[in-house]
């Protein structure tokens, strides 16, 4: 999360994941720096050790909740996620 990504709304997204973890969901959460894709920020990458990484672009708090519910808890990546 660089300044520009925070401006694009990544802090709200991070807060969602943090509160999910505080709520008891067990996953490793890490912030990264700027990858240079200003046009699709904020981005979230979910890595399932068995199924590999899935990238979500233009994530907001609402979409973050959806990712937590469907992907992290349900185990099914959202259709829009890029593999």
């Amino acid at each position, binding site marked *: 999360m660089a300044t*520009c990504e925070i401006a694009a709304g990544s802090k709200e997204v991070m807060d969602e994941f943090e509160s999910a973890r505080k709520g008891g969901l067990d996953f490793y959460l890490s912030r990264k720096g*700027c990858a240079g*894709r200003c046009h699709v920020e904020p981005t979230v990458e979910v890595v399932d050790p068995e199924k590999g*990484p899935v990238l979500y672009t233009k994530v907001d708090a609402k979409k973050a909740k959806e990712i937590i519910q469907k992907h992290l808890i349900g185990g099914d990546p959202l259709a829009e996620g890029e593999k």
Partner: protein
Amino acid sequence: MTKQSMHDRSLDVFGKAGFFKSQLRIALRNCGIIDPEDLDDYLNVRGFEALAKVLSGIKSEAVIAEIKKSGLRGRGGAGFGTGLKWELVARERSDQKYVICNADEGDPGAFMDRSIIEGDPFTVLEGMAIAGYAVGSDKGIVYIRAEYPLAIKRLEKAIEAAKKANLLGKDILGSGFSFDIEIRLGAGAFVCGEETALMQSIEGHRGMPRPRPPYPSASGLFCKPTLINNVETWANVPVVIIEGADWFSSVGTEKSKGTKVFALAGKINNTGLVEVPMGTTLRHVIFDIGGGIPGGKKLKAVQTGGPSGGCIPAHLIDTPIDYESLGKIGSIMGSGGMIVIDEDSCMVSIAKFFLEFTQSESCGKCTPCREGTKRMLEILTRITEGQGKAGDIEKLERLGNTIKKASLCGLGQSAPNPVLSTIKYFRNEYEDHINNKKCTAGACEKMLSYTINDKCIGCGACKKACPVNAISGAVKQKHLIDQKLCTKCGECYKTCKFSAIDKG
């Protein structure tokens, strides 16, 4: 490990989507991959391996020779040979030498240095420590602008973590070499990115350049030999040491080695930071990586190098990006700003925008820059307001060339570039503004007029939209715009569904 391993890792993480596929990430190799506040993350991606390698028995002369051989050139803009700079400082005999990181990134639209520090602060520290060992200095200073609070915070954390792990400080890794880094904040003056002004600022004086020689390598900070490099240059150093000069110099062109990071902005689909090998064409960056111009508009020009750079017209976009080629067509590499301009933009306004910036940032020490840029701006302003006179273009050219030749520092020497390059390639637009009082792109507000044509059905939508009640007319009858009241805001033009409003 393969030679491209550092870049391949980015591809593994980000996928092989078009945006990353044709990039080669050296300076940005860890940005977006590691947690910038976690030293372990950096160590995992071969962090501090270069420093450890150097300290475990490579002679300082050999380190400098490797950097020289790599062909790395300063990424701050001027492109001075990094290895040569190191050698000049190493040659000096002094009780104290300084290593400075120039993180005073002031170009409007450029943010690669901030991204590197915010995404991978350790690499800058590592690069500086390697240089400290090579030139015989034990003191590093990062000069960073106060407008980058998050970057400063991450840098502070990184320095603290590195010190704790004995990767900075006294007797690093038991090698006997000591190197300490501290942070100095700049107050956001553009001119403080110029090396002599930057050092004046660190010393506590007013940030103003001084004539060179003496060069910083002989007499820099506190009159001691000083090595000063840009953030992006530092980020390249560990890679040169790990992967070797031969690999590094295999990337790029004959005279410009390695890669360059560009901040792609303006009228482009994929805005962002891109890192490409030197010699990549502008077309490739704009259309293949940047995804072209939104709305099917035509490319008009590309502005590179920020306020010190020039405008490159669309017909030259097959120019390879390297220090020499950009210089030849009247622009510069600069710190790597790249602003894409489409057909809706007026080149005179763009030149004026950049000159406004350099004029207000001129420190005022030397007359050509202080007075010259002001006079140039006055002329440009009157041209965009429809008051241009015959001979203005020639006067701009004469002033511009004089300022370039006579100014003390890089700010003045490059300030006229946006104006001179737009005159060179878009002279007809200047002539249109002056002779026909017309701005073809329709961007100069004062020269615009909105009129209603016969397509008007009298719906009244424009009348409602007009904020100054300049439009009159009965329902179902052609409306009229009062030119004296009109503020040229363009609301009526945007509102009309019948193309009944002409702009021009």
